[in-house]
């Protein structure tokens, strides 16, 4: 989640102020009173509610308005969505989806396989406009033999396809002749999800109504309001005042929110992790023992306790919270092990207590987006820990826009990625050598390891579950031996809801800000 400098500035204030504020008693959460409306405050406001212009982690409104052919269950496994079933050809290049009978869009028009074809064709054609188009580059064509059948023909097997089609379907009748970036549709979208958008007031709120003809039946909450309150402390005040029933809250606010017994806290793990990326253009990182040593030198628990106020877990790799996780890497806070590795690499402590070899220390600059207060805090704590452990590190946050132009010049960087669903996504890009920065990819540190490359290619090229599990196990093992990052922590996400709201179910979310409403059709007032 991105924050303006202003908001960041006021968090510090808020922590101090709210320690004494909010003491009195008042109206309290209005749950179940005002006609059953659930009002929820969130800081980030999307610029568009079009799911094809977001990534797989959509904002709550888009999440509730749209549905895809597939969706994810509480274990992040793919389950039927608008498609009731599908068949995959033996060689993995043909997928046939069967739509549920009698599906309708929010405006009452029937939803057919033509809309499926339209969605895929449009996203593919949008190219640069829609980053998600990369998910459909293997799709050669979509055929619609009848109204409820859509057949995808692929040019090569692409295992993450069932994941990719969880993207919300777009209605052909509302978008014909318009560009995918059309502002009208982005502000007044028509979907087939459990809630229909009644009003969207940018800068204020979105009002949603239960959709009578939702395929699983009418949701039990009649109305939901998503209120955009960018200031963190203002959001907590509104929650405690009863101006809103629920809110997304920051780790530092958890203690205050917990002290109100009308509020229940929903704390979910996420796949969203933070790590220190090494730039392999810097020869100081050439020796893998040095990188392993740093992974033993950082105290992840201390970072979680201080920076995340306990709202997170130590990280040891990119798939720790993923269904494809295997044996975790052995990284933990172990200064003796770090020293041993450094000595093994030929380093010795100099007069300043820094590791030195051939007159050179392990000297590099760690940076991150200055606008992201949580990342800056991680930078400060990690840089201090590594310096105390003998690494000649300096920490300097830089503006986001500067970093964007200087990926290739960075020493190390506090990065964030996350892979909640298929193990291929947000893993192939950051770690495969074909995705190196200079080749235009998202492997920003130019990491290169032949075993990692091979495992990733195997994982994406077969549909066999067992073979895929084995491929990603090999990948995680290779990554632990030749670490591309210093793994730091997975973030937890906190949402406050009134005590009488039932239904929210814990799941590993893909993003620390979004995803809380994933099973909203089951929520109700008790």
């Amino acid at each position, binding site marked *: 989640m991105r924050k303006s400098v202003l908001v960041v500035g006021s968090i510090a204030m808020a922590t101090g102020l709210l320690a004494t*504020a909010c003491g009195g008693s008042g109206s309290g959460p209005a749950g179940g009173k005002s006609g059953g409306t659930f009002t929820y405050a969130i800081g980030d406001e999307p610029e568009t509610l079009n799911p094809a212009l977001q990534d797989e982690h959509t904002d709550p409104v888009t999440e509730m308005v749209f549905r895809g052919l597939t969706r994810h269950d509480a274990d992040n496994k793919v389950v039927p969505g608008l498609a009731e079933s599908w068949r995959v050809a033996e060689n993995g290049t043909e997928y046939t989806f069967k739509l549920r009978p009698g599906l309708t869009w929010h405006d009452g028009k029937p939803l057919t396989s033509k809309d499926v074809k339209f969605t895929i064709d449009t996203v593919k054609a949008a190219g640069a406009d829609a*980053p998600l188009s990369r998910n459909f580059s293997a799709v050669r064509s979509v055929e619609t033999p009848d109204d409820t059948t859509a057949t995808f023909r692929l040019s090569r097997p692409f295992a993450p396809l069932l994941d990719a089609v969880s993207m919300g379907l777009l209605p052909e009748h509302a978008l014909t002749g318009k560009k995918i970036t059309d502002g009208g549709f982005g502000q007044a979208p028509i979907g087939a999800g459990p809630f229909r958008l009644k009003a969207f007031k940018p800068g204020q709120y979105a009002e949603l109504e239960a959709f009578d003809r939702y395929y699983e039946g009418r949701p039990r909450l009649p109305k939901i*309001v998503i209120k955009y*309150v960018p200031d963190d402390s203002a959001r907590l005040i509104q929650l405690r005042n009863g101006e809103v029933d629920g809110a997304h809250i920051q780790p530092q606010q958890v203690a205050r929110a917990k002290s109100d017994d009308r509020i229940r806290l929903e704390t979910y793990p996420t796949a969203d992790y933070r790590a220190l990326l090494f730039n392999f253009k810097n020869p100081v990182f050439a020796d893998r023992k040095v990188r392993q040593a740093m992974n033993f030198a950082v105290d992840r628990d201390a970072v979680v306790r201080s920076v995340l106020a306990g709202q997170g877990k130590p990280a040891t790799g990119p798939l720790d919270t993923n269904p494809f996780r295997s044996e975790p890497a052995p990284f933990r806070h172990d200064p003796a092990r770090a020293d041993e590795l450094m000595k093994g690499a030929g380093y010795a402590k100099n007069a300043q207590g820094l590791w030195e070899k051939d007159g050179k220390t392990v000297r590099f600059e760690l940076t991150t987006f200055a606008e992201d207060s949580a990342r800056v805090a991680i930078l400060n704590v990690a840089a201090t820990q590594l310096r105390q452990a003998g690494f000649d590190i300096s920490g300097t946050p830089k503006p986001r826009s*500067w970093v964007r132009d200087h990926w290739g010049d960075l020493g190390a960087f506090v990065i964030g990625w996350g892979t909640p669903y298929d193990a291929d996504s947000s893993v192939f890009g950051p770690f495969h050598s074909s995705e190196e920065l200079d080749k235009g990819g998202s492997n920003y540190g130019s990491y290169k390891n032949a075993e990692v490359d091979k495992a990733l290619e195997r994982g994406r090229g077969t549909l066999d579950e067992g073979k895929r599990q084995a491929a990603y196990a090999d990948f995680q093992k290779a990554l632990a031996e030749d670490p591309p990052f210093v793994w730091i922590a997975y973030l937890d996400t906190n949402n406050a809801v009134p005590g009488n709201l039932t239904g929210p179910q814990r799941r590993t979310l893909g993003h620390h800000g979004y995803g809380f409403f994933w099973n909203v059709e089951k929520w109700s007032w008790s």
Partner: protein
Amino acid sequence: MVLVLNPPLLGFLVRRAVTALVVVAALSALCFALLDLAPGSPAESILEARNGGRPPSAAEVARLERHMGLDDPLPQRYGRWVAGAVRGDFGLSYGSGRPVGEILAETAPWTALLTLVATAFSVAGAVAVGLVAAVTRRAWVRRGIETALFVLGGMPGFVTALLLLWVFAAWLRVLPSGGLARPGEPVTLGVLVPHLVLPALALAFGHHFGTYARLVETGVGRLRNAPHVANARARGLRGRTVTARHLLRPGLVPFTARLGVGVGGLMAGAYATEQIFSWPGVGRQAILAARDQDYAVLTAVVLVTGVIVIVANLLGDLAVAWLDPRVRLTGRTSDGRH
């Protein structure tokens, strides 16, 4: 007294209007050039937003830049923009795809309202407090006011805003903490007024209130022992008449001249205030646009802000002209400027 548009004043106005046009044109060019110099690319920001905040690949960025025409040379892009702007077409927002004009029409009135009410609070409060401090014979009252103004002047705007929020919304719970109305509630006057109080107070107190009050105090205090005031008293005029006509009116000139300029600062303050009170104005829009490098929106917001500041300065000059006959009659400001 009615302000008569005599020839010198009319000339003064025309000169000012021409200058304003030139300033707006220069502002747009400067804004374009500066944004062009800024590091990073809007295409990268857009893709990052569509990627859940994760960095996009260089190839994706290059593709979108070509697609959006962002790789055209600066003069060509500026020419395109001017051609649209003169017809009132400011293009489409990079992020939401909506017409920028529509976004402005939706947000600018709320910022105008907030700034206007805050200015009214500022003027009323500063004149009252400043006048009391200037005419009181009790030293402790004056010193008390001066100390309070000093503290207020040293407090950043957002701190004032959070303090007000804490006292009136969280602790006393007498005023709502943000927005125009409760979601879904129609924005009627009766609903709007209580929602407007806290942001307007925060904006007024957080920005230049201390300066204004001190300007009133010194402006009026300077005249307390002036010969014309002594003369008026000697003629046996009532105390109230002396205060209003001979002290307050000429004493307000420095304050009024500063007020017009101060609206610019108030606009800047509105950006922060709107963010804290979830006020759907141009300020929030500007912060979002700056964050996402939505230059289509940002350029338009800068221009609108510029026009408001220029108009406010002009109104300030007119108010000074009304208060100060030298300006009214000769078209010169009190310090001799044209």
